């Protein structure tokens, strides 16, 4: 190995990290700006989630738990919209529930936007329970009676005055709970609601959490798993409505290629440097 090469690898090891930020920024931005798209392949975990909802008869109730806030919005909001489109397209009733207070306006925004697309009526086809503190306690009490923790909906309207809620009292009246998770609420849904009430569950989680949630899927504790923006893109494909998930996939793929190259270069640099120090 000659001196010039060693000098190059040494320089590479000490490169200003802002160059890496810039390269990643460009790699992510260019596909968005030029509208590049990539083919999305559906994984069995997402297909299973889709099939679980798809099998429900018309009029069944799907409860969607908004357990995220603005920080996880790019990953979970596309999932929410894709699932809502699926539910409304099949004429399923949707109940939104919030365990993250800062997620309340975000979830409601997505719900109203998609409900408007399908001409659905509040209180008849969908409703929002709003936010309640107390996570596990609220989940457990809903197993007996939703009204024992939610006296009214998001605006304080008594639940019995909403036509769709007249016969909905507890998990026996809910076909599937979909938890959109950026924290530990998904574990609580599985460990308390699925374990105690045998409630069918689907989890949509941020990519950071996906690896940790797979054991629930393997054990049959959840019916389906939608992981990160990739999972959202897969669900969008299944409902035949490409949206933000699809927009992001090209950027995601190219960014991954760039990061893999950085890791390879970093490792080559490390071994070159070690070889030089050993005097080889």
């Amino acid at each position, binding site marked *: 190995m000659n001196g010039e090469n060693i000098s190059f690898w040494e320089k590479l090891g000490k490169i200003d990290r802002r160059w890496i930020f810039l390269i*990643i920024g460009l790699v992510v931005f260019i596909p968005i700006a030029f509208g590049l798209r990539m083919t999305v392949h559906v994984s069995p975990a997402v297909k299973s989630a889709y099939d679980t909802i798809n099998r429900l008869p018309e009029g069944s109730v799907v409860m969607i738990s908004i357990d995220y806030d603005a920080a996880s919005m790019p990953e979970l909001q596309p999932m929410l919209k894709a699932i809502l489109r699926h539910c409304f397209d099949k004429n399923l009733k949707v109940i939104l529930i919030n365990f993250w207070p800062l997620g309340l306006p975000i979830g409601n925004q997505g719900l109203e936007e998609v409900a408007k697309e399908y001409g659905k009526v509040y209180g008849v086809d969908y409703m929002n329970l709003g936010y*309640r*503190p107390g996570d596990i306690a609220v989940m457990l009490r809903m197993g007996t009676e939703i009204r024992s923790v939610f006296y009214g909906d998001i605006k304080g309207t008594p639940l019995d005055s909403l036509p769709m809620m007249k016969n909905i009292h507890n998990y026996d009246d809910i076909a599937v709970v979909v938890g959109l998770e950026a924290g530990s609420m998904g574990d609580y849904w599985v460990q*308390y609601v699925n374990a105690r009430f045998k409630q069918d569950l689907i989890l949509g989680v941020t*990519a950071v959490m996906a*690896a940790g949630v797979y054991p629930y899927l393997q*054990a049959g*504790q959840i019916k389906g798993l939608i992981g990160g*923006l990739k999972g959202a893109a897969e669900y969008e494909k299944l409902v035949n409505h490409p949206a933000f998930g699809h927009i992001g996939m090209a950027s995601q793929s190219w960014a991954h290629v760039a*990061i893999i190259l950085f890791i390879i270069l970093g490792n080559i640099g490390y071994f070159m440097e070690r070889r030089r120090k050993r005097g080889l």
Partner: protein
Amino acid sequence: MIEALGIWVAAGLTLAIMSFLYGDNPIYKFAEHLYVGYSAGYWLIYTWHFTIKLMVIQPIAEKQPGAIFLVIPLFFGVLMLTRWFPRIAWISRWSIAFTVGIGAGLTLTGAIHGYIIPQVKATILPLWTGNGFSSFNNLVIVIGVLTTLIYFFFSRPHTGVLGKTSKVGILFIMIAFGASFGYTVMARISLLIGRLDFLWSSILKLVHFF
């Protein structure tokens, strides 16, 4: 016009936060403090509206059935405020004891009933299912669980068969870390995609607006 103003503010704050990538600066600090203050205000309003007003004041004022029992958690809640007064701060321990007791009971039942038992059951798998691929999957799960458990068995020195098996366990742990790290990279890039898409669509909206 108000929508355009909102877009300008949101895009400006996004750029202000992103400016930290170049280096710490006053614009970033301003956006950071604004976010902290706004979040604290938001939490305060939500706690008042959804917890105190909706779950305590309203049921008692409307004399809802069972509302009288709300006096108990309300009493323990008020006791927490004694922490502000050092001489009687010890009283708050009653509330803490109440919370810890409930938390421990719930966590214990949830962990055993909802996590440990189903996960152990899911590991007891047939090593031959009649299908080569699923049999291999089952074998990987069984070997992975056993060797990883052996790695965390510290009552005997990791030598001989135990040492070799625990090394296989490390391999499984490393693969799990790698998968987790890969997903973490994916998550962080997704957030960047969300912000850059917002900035780009904001620019397009503003161009269209003017």
